[in-house]
């Protein structure tokens, strides 16, 4: 007769019964608890992983870019050179305008530079995680700028060594701004994926390519109108706005308090900002 061996198992703690899904869920709950209870330690632990992800993304981008045809690159380069010349002229005019406004402003501003740990599209809510926090002088409600002083968003959470930025393109984000050369006021809504939108009267005469600005020191451009959706039965048109900077490749940002004008423009939209 064949003898049957019955292994003595703990009915409560049998690894054979634990599924990969349960393990994954336990890991996610542990991560959530760590973020809630010891957020600074949590980001200290995860920051190196994000840095590895960043370098891997950069390497893979370089690898795939090497397959791009040289002709396309030449054409693109030529187009960019033309655009660059046009922008240089526009920048010159704007610098003169800003110099005039700067003379009026008596307020001194302290700039803080911070590296970006996580950004869209990995971050699905259009948020940035910065490697600087309370100890670096970052505080809630500071405005965040990218290269060239382009406004990107607002600091929404601060930890001792890390902080989180809600971009203007975050779904649910609302900020007051202006569009066009005549600075027509409008309300800008974040629509996710790095994009924004706004509604305006058809009679305002906004065209594709018009610059959209938000309050900073003066009016700072955050994007441009790339498409105008209009319904013949409606007196309003919807402007689809593309940011000036590519949010998916932002590696550092500059933070500063931009004063009451920006906070006022932003607090109209949300009451959560102090």
């Amino acid at each position: 007769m064949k003898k049957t061996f019955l292994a003595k198992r703990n009915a409560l703690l049998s690894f054979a019964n634990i599924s990969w899904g349960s393990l994954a869920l336990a890991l996610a709950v542990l991560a959530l608890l760590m973020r809630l209870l010891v957020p600074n330690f949590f980001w200290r632990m995860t920051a190196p992983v994000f840095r590895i992800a960043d370098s891997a993304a950069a390497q893979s981008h370089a690898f795939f870019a090497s397959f791009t045809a040289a002709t396309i690159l030449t054409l693109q380069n030529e187009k960019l050179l033309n655009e660059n010349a046009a922008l240089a002229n526009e920048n010159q005019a704007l610098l003169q305008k800003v110099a005039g406004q700067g003379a009026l402003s008596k307020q001194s501003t302290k700039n803080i530079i911070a590296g970006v740990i996580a950004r869209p599209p990995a971050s699905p809510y259009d948020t940035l995680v910065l490697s600087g926090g309370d100890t670096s002088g970052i505080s809630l409600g500071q405005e965040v700028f990218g290269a060239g002083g382009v406004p990107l968003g607002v600091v929404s959470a601060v930890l001792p060594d890390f902080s989180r930025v809600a971009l203007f393109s975050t779904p649910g984000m609302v900020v007051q701004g202006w569009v066009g050369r005549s600075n027509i006021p409008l309300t800008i809504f974040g629509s996710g994926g790095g994009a924004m939108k706004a509604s305006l009267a058809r009679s305002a005469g906004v065209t594709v390519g018009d610059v959209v600005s938000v309050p900073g020191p003066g009016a700072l451009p955050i994007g441009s109108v790339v498409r105008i959706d209009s319904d013949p039965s409606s007196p309003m048109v919807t402007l689809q706005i593309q940011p000036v900077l590519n949010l998916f490749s932002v590696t550092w940002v500059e933070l500063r308090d931009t004063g009451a004008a920006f906070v006022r423009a932003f607090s109209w939209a949300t009451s959560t900002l102090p």
Partner: protein
Amino acid sequence: MMRGMFTLATLASVIFFPWPFSAVLAFASASLEPLVPLAAGLLADTLYYTPYAGALPVFTFYGAVVSIVAVFVRSRMRAGTIS
């Protein structure tokens, strides 16, 4: 082995890849491990959720919905005897 690989790939993709890729992997994993979409959604919200984006952590919510649907579908498809 396949289940483990899918689970780990889904969780890693939350950090390493754009969220649509993570969503596709979570859907694919749901057929093998129904709890993985919920875990991936929870991890995504742990890392990236901000109250400015709305009161509801949408990735946890959608992950939970997919997990519930996956559990239901698996329970319907499980082999059994017809009495």
